[in-house]
């Protein structure tokens, strides 16, 4: 049974590239940047062999632009970068979000701000992933916590992008991108691939930004007979620029509703020791979740009632899940490798007077279980 299963020792970045190929990626445009370059290197070898396109562009902005152009021509397109490059991509990322162009943007998070610590780990771009581009806009972001999960979430990123016609950001912690772990490689028949909804109407009737019942308009590809217009200007259902307040409001409302309506389908999270509901809840994500699990297990061995929620879909944030747990626990701890970003989101959904405490590390090193364990212990002691 085990013999026909394929396991490989992969680095996180390699798993991401392999996941992209399994997820149907046939276009990659990128620019070298530590710590994400291995993704581009891997795809520069593999994509031409499979008839896909790999291109190294002149900069990060161009890479993001090429990805959008490729996607509108019908490709499943991806780019990969890290902090400074992610900052440069923001304007075009906003275009992709506003024009509902499916694509995957990998951001391997390194120490910041600015050039920061290119080779060290961080989770400090989580809010940038949400609000990097200007203006209200929808965004989906996933945060894996292992190499194997990186592979599966990269496939999932392509599926979400295609299904919801939105860019998906894969937030990899540097430590996961550069770690090597045993990774299961699924067979093609084990993978479910999603294709974007295409128009079936005659070209003259096609509305590329139609107010559909599920808020997701079908997307034709350039060159298939639907001669449509795409613009970053506020547009009507036909895709043409508009300054009409009703049309502007309808578009922005539909984009918001798209996320609200489908967020439960996008949510992925993992609960540990949440039944019965514990006194203390640890909310965390990415590599920090692995550290937090260890701390939670040690605390539980000492009889402390503590459980853990690992958020996998960071955006849209699983608000209702946190709201429900927050209504029952006595305190919440949010460990993250930054000075406090997701904790702001958690605080939004706590409606009672309970402590919400952050655990932070932002020096480029991994957090240690003792840091989280001590915080759990301190919280417990305050109640005794």
């Amino acid at each position: 049974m085990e013999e026909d299963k394929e396991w490989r020792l992969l680095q996180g970045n390699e798993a991401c590239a392999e996941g992209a190929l399994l997820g149907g990626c046939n276009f990659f445009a990128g620019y070298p940047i530590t710590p994400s370059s291995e993704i581009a290197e891997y795809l520069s070898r593999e994509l031409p062999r499979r008839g896909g396109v790999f291109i190294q562009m002149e900069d990060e902005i161009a890479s993001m632009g090429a990805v959008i152009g490729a996607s509108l021509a019908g490709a499943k397109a991806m780019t990969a970068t890290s902090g400074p490059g992610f900052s440069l991509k923001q304007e075009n990322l906003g275009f992709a979000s506003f024009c509902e162009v499916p694509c995957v943007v990998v951001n391997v998070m390194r120490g910041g701000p600015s050039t920061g610590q290119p080779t060290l780990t961080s989770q400090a771009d989580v809010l940038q992933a949400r609000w990097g581009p200007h203006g209200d806009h929808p965004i989906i972001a996933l945060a894996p916590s292992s190499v194997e999960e990186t592979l599966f979430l990269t496939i999932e990123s392509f599926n979400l992008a295609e299904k919801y016609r939105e860019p998906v950001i894969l937030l990899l912690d540097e430590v996961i991108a550069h770690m090597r772990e045993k990774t299961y490689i699924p067979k093609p028949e084990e993978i479910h691939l999603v294709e974007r909804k295409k128009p079936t109407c005659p070209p003259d009737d096609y509305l590329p930004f139609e107010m559909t019942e599920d808020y997701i308009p079908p997307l034709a590809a350039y060159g298939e007979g639907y001669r449509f217009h795409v613009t970053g200007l506020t547009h009507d259902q036909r895709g043409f620029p508009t300054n009409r307040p009703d049309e502007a409001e309808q578009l922005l409302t539909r984009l918001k509703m798209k996320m609200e309506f489908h967020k439960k389908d996008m949510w992925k999270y993992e609960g540990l020791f949440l039944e019965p509901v514990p006194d203390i809840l640890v909310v965390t994500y990415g590599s920090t979740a692995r550290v937090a699990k260890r701390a939670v297990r040690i605390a539980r061995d000492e009889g402390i009632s503590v459980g853990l929620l690992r958020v996998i879909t960071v955006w849209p944030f699983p608000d209702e899940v946190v709201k429900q747990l927050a209504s029952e626990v006595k305190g919440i701890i949010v460990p993250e490798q930054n000075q406090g970003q997701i904790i702001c989101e958690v605080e939004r959904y706590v409606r009672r007077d309970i402590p919400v405490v952050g655990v932070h590390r932002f020096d480029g090193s991994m957090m240690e279980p003792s840091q989280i364990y001590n915080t759990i212990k301190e919280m417990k002691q305050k109640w005794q």
Partner: protein
Amino acid sequence: MAVVHKYLRLKKKFPHVWCAGCTNGIILHATIRAIDKLKIPKDDVLMVSGIGCSSRAPVYFDFNTLHTTHGRAIPFATGAKLVKPHLKVIVITGDGDALAIGGNHFIHACVRNIDLTVIVFNNFNYGMTGGQRSPTTPPGKRTTTSPFGSIDPPVNVCSLAMGAGATFVARTTAYHFRPMESIIARAIQHKGFSVVEVRCNCPIIYGRLNRLGDGAKMLLDLKEQSMTVEAWKKLPPEKQKKAEQEKIIIGVLKEDTKTPEYTEQYRALCEQLQAL
């Protein structure tokens, strides 16, 4: 029905946004006639633009159209071309869009020799935002951000394109409608990166700030200032230099059909690897 009507989104998108006396419509018309002459099906044309007055053009065309972010039309076009090489991809851009904010993309697309046709509407200022100095504003000319006359040396679109390796480079003006039509047709047919600079007018802002007269006067001035590249070549070398500075040299300045085109090279690489 005139040829132009077949290619416009007449029922959907008119009237247009351009000012009275603006020459963008002339370039748009010449582009349509070139495409019609080449008998390229509308479904096979992808028109991509950046931001600015000229970049508003694609919305009026009944093609596949993409109005991107400021300066980034070439990267978007590059992505689409690589995925669908059969598309005729035409980039509509302006002097500010192509040479300032998009300068790096312009240079690298020239180097790459990817089969795109870039039409640069060069009107010497940022018209859309109210007439600020652009990379092609001539020395001494007034704009809303060079109120005392520009001291910045201007960029020469065609010299830059030729220097960076574009394989088809041509210059024309909004006055020269028929030559423009055939130059754009040749540029589209060219297998490789082609650049057509069209010297055009912004009488409402740039013209007014520099007292250049109305639209008609400025159009006639383009005629007066122009000299064909053929006539220029016949001049003795010392007069050529002077003419280069004082005249608009129009015509096809460079045509290289030997340098391999990028998408073809990429496909050849794929086939080579897949045959292994």
